[in-house]
């Protein structure tokens, strides 16, 4: 924008001010016109976000209604917090909360450290060809669909000719019905996740590790640090901020157990440990048609999610980490 010359008398100053205001007003129009093609390009995406992200956000108001599909949104009755009251007093609420939190907890304890450990071990490999080969192999499961993962689990674990049960039969003389037993559900889910995502999860840590200055290691070797000490004092601190960012993101997803995976492994026999908030929303909403009630359940989950992300981020900042916002 053009800079006006500095005015040296009051009258001129006033004139400049009015002029600037007018210019700003026409400025908006002219900037819109100048970028008209950019706005044309922006429109499809913007419409997408409005229709499929923001209209559903406004749609959470269904949770406070008794939504009847034939009446539509505008004519359905408002019921306030009734659905929330029903949900929180339902004994199933505690089952869902326990199942969801336990799966998240096991995920955090058993899965979260796995990519870090694997990345550290890969980082110790000096032969580029070997490292590349292993990386090629371990990234594969990430791209396999969850249906395939569940199918593989079924084919391996079924009591009707699955390889695992055939081996159990041969060696200990009995079969275990993993797929239908509540006790095996959580280990099965966690093992699936570890198999599918550990390899791909190393990418982000390996990228951070690639940035570490080699001189630091050389200096540490001079000071007599062995491999383990180098790993502890140089390698690990260099990926600390990455670990913390991922931990924050993970905290925000404490109530997200990965709907599809659980849905695929859920069956009437393991429901007591397998049903989580997401699958409950699907069952109540889509299968049984309780739209408002399941929207309330979903809204509860989403709000807890936002609070958790913001809360963990705030905590991380308080402890001197950079956080994600």
């Amino acid at each position, binding site marked *: 924008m053009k800079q006006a010359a500095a005015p040296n008398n009051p009258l001129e100053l006033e004139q400049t001010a009015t002029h600037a205001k007018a210019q700003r007003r026409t400025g908006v129009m002219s900037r819109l016109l100048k*970028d008209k093609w950019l*706005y044309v390009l922006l429109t499809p995406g913007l419409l997408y976000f409005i229709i499929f992200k923001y209209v559903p956000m406004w749609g959470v108001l269904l949770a406070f209604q008794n939504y009847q599909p034939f009446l539509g949104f505008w004519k359905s009755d408002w019921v306030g917090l009734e659905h929330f009251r029903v949900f929180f007093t339902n004994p199933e609420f505690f089952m869902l909360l326990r199942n969801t939190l336990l799966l998240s907890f096991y995920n955090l304890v058993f899965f979260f450290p796995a990519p870090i450990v*694997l990345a550290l071990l890969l980082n110790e490999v000096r032969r580029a060809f070997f490292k590349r080969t292993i990386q090629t192999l371990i990234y594969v499961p990430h791209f396999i669909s969850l249906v*395939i993962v*569940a*199918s593989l689990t079924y084919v391996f674990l079924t009591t009707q000719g699955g390889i695992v049960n055939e081996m159990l039969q041969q060696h200990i003389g009995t079969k275990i019905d993993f797929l239908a037993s509540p006790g095996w559900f959580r280990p099965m889910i966690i093992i699936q996740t570890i198999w599918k995502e550990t390899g791909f999860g190393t990418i982000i840590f390996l*990228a951070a590790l690639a940035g570490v200055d080699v001189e630091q290691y050389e200096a540490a070797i001079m000071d007599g640090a062995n491999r383990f000490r180098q790993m502890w004092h140089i390698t690990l601190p260099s990926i600390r901020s990455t670990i913390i960012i991922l931990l924050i993101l993970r905290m925000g997803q404490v109530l997200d157990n990965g709907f599809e995976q659980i849905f*695929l492994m859920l069956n*009437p026999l393991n429901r007591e440990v397998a049903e989580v908030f997401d699958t409950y929303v699907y069952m109540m909403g889509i299968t049984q048609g309780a739209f408002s009630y399941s929207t309330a359940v979903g809204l509860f989950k989403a709000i807890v999610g936002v609070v958790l992300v913001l809360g963990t981020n705030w905590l991380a900042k308080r402890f001197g980490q950079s956080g994600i916002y």
Partner: protein
Amino acid sequence: MSKTYRSFAGTLFDVSNYIFLSIVGIVAVLPFIYVVAGSFASDAELTQRAVFLIPKSFTLSAYEFIFSTDTILKSIGVSLYVTVVGTLVNLFFTVTMAYALSKKNLMGRNTFLNMIVFSMLFGGGLIPTYIVVRELQMLDTYWALIIPGAISAFNLIIVKNFFQELPQELEEAAKIDGCTEIGLLMRIVLPLSMPVLATFTLFYAVGHWNNFFSALLYLNDPAKWPLQVMLRQIVLLSQMAAGDMSQVDPQFVKQQEQSIKMAVIVVGTIPILLVYPFLQKHFAKGVLIGSVKG
């Protein structure tokens, strides 16, 4: 230099590290190898000796069976159609919006960006989205598998960041020569962004091929189901006496034979394994990595 410092403990660590990583690598792909082998074995062999990597009696009967009716072929067709059209839609929506947002002096840019970031943090959830799709008359059409996921906010931001990094001089020169923004995008920005676009094409395509939930949610007519939903019916639901198994061709569902299930798994996996070398080439280049860090 490192050789002189190599201690016994260090060597021991190296050796066990190599062994351990080799095992991890094998475990990642072993299930597929076993399933491929099993799909060519007779069912009698599968029950007799569960553990093998090369079937004694090589047979194609499992494949002959699954392709004996057009149920599977049709669902492969659906999957391919949704993958191709869906990926094109993804690219169109992502590229146009990312390009507009990559212009730092675009009026309202920050508002739009905040809007996108907020949608990553909070969403209306399953039911309100379902109702929107229903109100748009998309139920039981393939558009329901394509349009509601037209943009991944995460991918959009990465592509936007990439466009922002491109040298501005080229674009200014083209503008002086009278090129419009759309011409600029088509003739200068897109050709410069081919590696990034290839990456996202593959990621979006894999996502479409692997997606089963949208189909389950939005398509009630089994004749329209893509391969992943079919796979679930054949492998998972035949295991249980579940109510909705009667929806599919009963001839498929009643089949308990392991080799047939394995053959269906192989059919569902092969397209991914075919594009995997390309995928790996691209994401290994660090397109995603750099942006995830930033």
